[in-house]
């Protein structure tokens, strides 16, 4: 009997493999192009970066293999500690603005403003910086924060609080970087969250109102529970995006003054493209890739991503 059972199991397993293979072949034309793009633009660069990190590639752009030399050098680099602290500050605080402020904007424009067109108008205004080229957006900030008496923020602080002109970027580089990135990042959160709010069945709001719930109660007990997955998605997405992004920092402070706003990804850029230490820059990037993978895995575990991705328990 046991033997018979084993034979049946083997047959079942074989059947499953064949079925899986067939379903993969059926799906291939659909996922094939995207798979190819992912291999070309995600996996290949990571592998190339990994190989490059084991070389002493410099201004000659030649692959001179040097083993783990770059990683040893990174271990001894006196800037690493400051750069790590800066990166943590930058990611955490910008994330709070991106998700938190994005959520507030979504509530304001998608819940409190009942007229949908008016809500959309405000959302479009908030989206404008995202539609503006990064250089223009950074220039606007530079003009706004101009250290002279004609700088807009200095005029405002002078008139409102009778303060002398300040060099905002020099005195608060990290604050400037966080606010500038947060403002632009919040617009994405706003769009995702307001769409999620719109998808909540109206019955819940009506039932809550009938029960005498205040706006705060509705936000707390209706909106937030429904927005669990969008908040999770935005948090993961923005964390990974912030760890690797540096373009606004490059344009606003260039990591300065004195490395005060240098974050890990910009550190890699500077080593590779300013000092022409491409191998060293690649080693810094590899560390970034490893950290990003670890953070993504931790976050997916924390938010219960598996539960969301599991197949439905009810079969139709």
């Amino acid at each position, binding site marked *: 009997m046991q033997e018979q059972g084993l034979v049946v199991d083997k047959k079942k397993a074989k059947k499953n493999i064949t079925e899986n293979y067939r379903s993969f072949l059926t799906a291939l034309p659909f996922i094939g192009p995207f798979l190819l793009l992912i291999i070309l633009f995600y996996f290949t660069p990571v592998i190339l970066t990994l190989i490059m990190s084991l070389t002493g590639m410099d*201004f*000659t752009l030649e692959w001179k293999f040097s083993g783990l030399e770059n990683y040893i050098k990174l271990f001894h680099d006196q800037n690493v500690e400051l750069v790590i602290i800066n990166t943590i500050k930058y990611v955490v605080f910008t994330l709070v603005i991106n998700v938190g402020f994005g959520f507030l904007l979504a509530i304001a424009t998608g819940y409190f403003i009942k007229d949908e067109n008016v809500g959309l108008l405000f959302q479009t205004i908030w989206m404008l910086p995202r539609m503006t080229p990064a250089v223009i957006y950074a220039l606007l900030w530079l003009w706004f924060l101009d*250290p002279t008496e004609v700088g807009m923020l200095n005029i405002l602080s002078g008139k409102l609080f009778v303060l002398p002109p300040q060099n905002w970027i*020099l005195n608060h580089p990290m604050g400037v970087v966080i606010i500038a990135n947060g403002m632009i990042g919040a617009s994405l959160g706003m769009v995702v969250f307001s769409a999620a709010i719109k998808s909540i069945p109206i019955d819940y709001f009506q039932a809550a109102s009938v029960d005498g719930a205040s706006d705060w109660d509705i936000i707390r007990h209706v909106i937030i529970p429904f927005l669990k997955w969008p908040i999770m998605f935005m948090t993961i997405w923005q964390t990974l995006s912030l760890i690797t992004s540096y373009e606004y920092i490059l344009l606003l402070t260039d990591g300065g*003054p*004195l490395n005060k706003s240098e974050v890990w990804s910009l550190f890699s850029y500077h080593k590779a493209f300013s000092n022409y*230490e491409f191998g060293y820059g690649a080693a810094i990037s590899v560390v970034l890739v490893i950290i990003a993978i670890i953070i993504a895995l931790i976050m997916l575990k924390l938010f219960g991503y598996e539960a969301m991705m599991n197949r439905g328990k009810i079969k139709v």
Partner: protein
Amino acid sequence: MKKIIGIFLTVVLSMSLILTGCGKVQETKDAGQKSDSGKTTAIENIVIEVESYGSPADSTRSTNLQEAAQELNKILEEKGDNRRVEVKTNHVSSGYDEYNRKFMLAHKSGGGADIRAISHSDIAMMAQGGYILQLDDYVNNSEWSKYVQDIYPNLWDASKWMARIYGIPQDTEARPLYFRKDILKKLGWSDEQISALPEKIKNGEFTLEDMTRLAREAVKKGAAKIGIYHRPNNGADFITLVYDFGGRLFDENTGKLIFERKPIKDTLNYFYQIAQVDKVIPSGMTSMEWRQIHKGWVEGEVLFWYGGTWHWGEYQKVEYHSKLGKLSENYMFQNMGYALVPAPSKGGKPVTLSQPYMYVINRNTKYPDLAFALIAVASQPKYNVKHAVESGHLVISSAAAEDTAYKQNRFLHDVQYMLNYTTVQPNHPEFGKFTSAFFKAIQAVEMGEYDPEQAVNWLEEQLKNDVKDMVFVD
């Protein structure tokens, strides 16, 4: 199915035609000319791409080659060469690092401009990286040698890497200390005293300390808003001060960079003093905008300015003054003076620094002989003087220095003596790492983040990690 194949073929054919049209046409053949033997030979038009860097006033670095191409074409015609040169120019005025980076990447994919104008301090990196041609044979043993033989020997030295020539000097300059005459007058200085100042600096009678004291007095008495301005970003001007304090940065015998702790610390101490102790420069000087600096200087708010000779040309071509716009040279002579960078102690030798520009030839070029010929022809005094006069640079040869237009230019004539006191940056591929770390150390002391001792320690530690080929001397 036939329809699909038909559409596919049409798309492929159209794309091929479009891509063919996009291709870079380097040469075309025109209607022929008659050679001596009476036979008609086809004229070959060759496009030479030139790119240069500098302020808008320096665009003659490119346009001179365009003009020289006409003269070269006549020479080619006279000697029966059927090739004709057409020059395409691109003058870049911002982002020097990016200017180089773009070329390096283009070179690796087989492209890049045929001729480029770069700072001499990048010769080592470009030569060692295999980006540019070695030119000894062209310079010494070619039919075009006669055009470049008169170039000053010290400029040839600046064009060398491992004792080989890789660049043709294009111009040179000095980096004077400018001072505002109108501010000095407000402080009670007579015209005679003002005109004697450059001589006093030259003789070591007016030191860096005197300069700081005067700047402090000007700010205190309200004659100037700011005592001293220097450049806001990484650059050669800070190296001038290291040399001024007696520092050496390169050992020519060993070919290695040197880190001499004392003069470097003295230099950092100088910037610490003027920013944090005497407060004659803004503590945020290293994060100011260039335009703001130029505006402050031309509008008479600053007593001293560590500038360059090319700024003399730039202020006449770019509108920095909010009321006057471009400055007239008369206004500049009336209100601005120029001298060497004062010595740190009485009786010491003042300095300046030159950063000669070089024409280099891309190793990928198909026409190295024509590229060299073009540069050689453009090195003649008539072109070089035009560039010098228009952009405030100094000429490259004794013949050019004798040119009437050059001799009659009062500013260039006045600053010519500075070449006797000049220094240059080392030609070493890793020197850029030193300058960028050194700038951060200067930023640290000016902002009061580090004192000079902490800054020099930080710098030493950083360079030990970054630079392979450096000797550290206490």
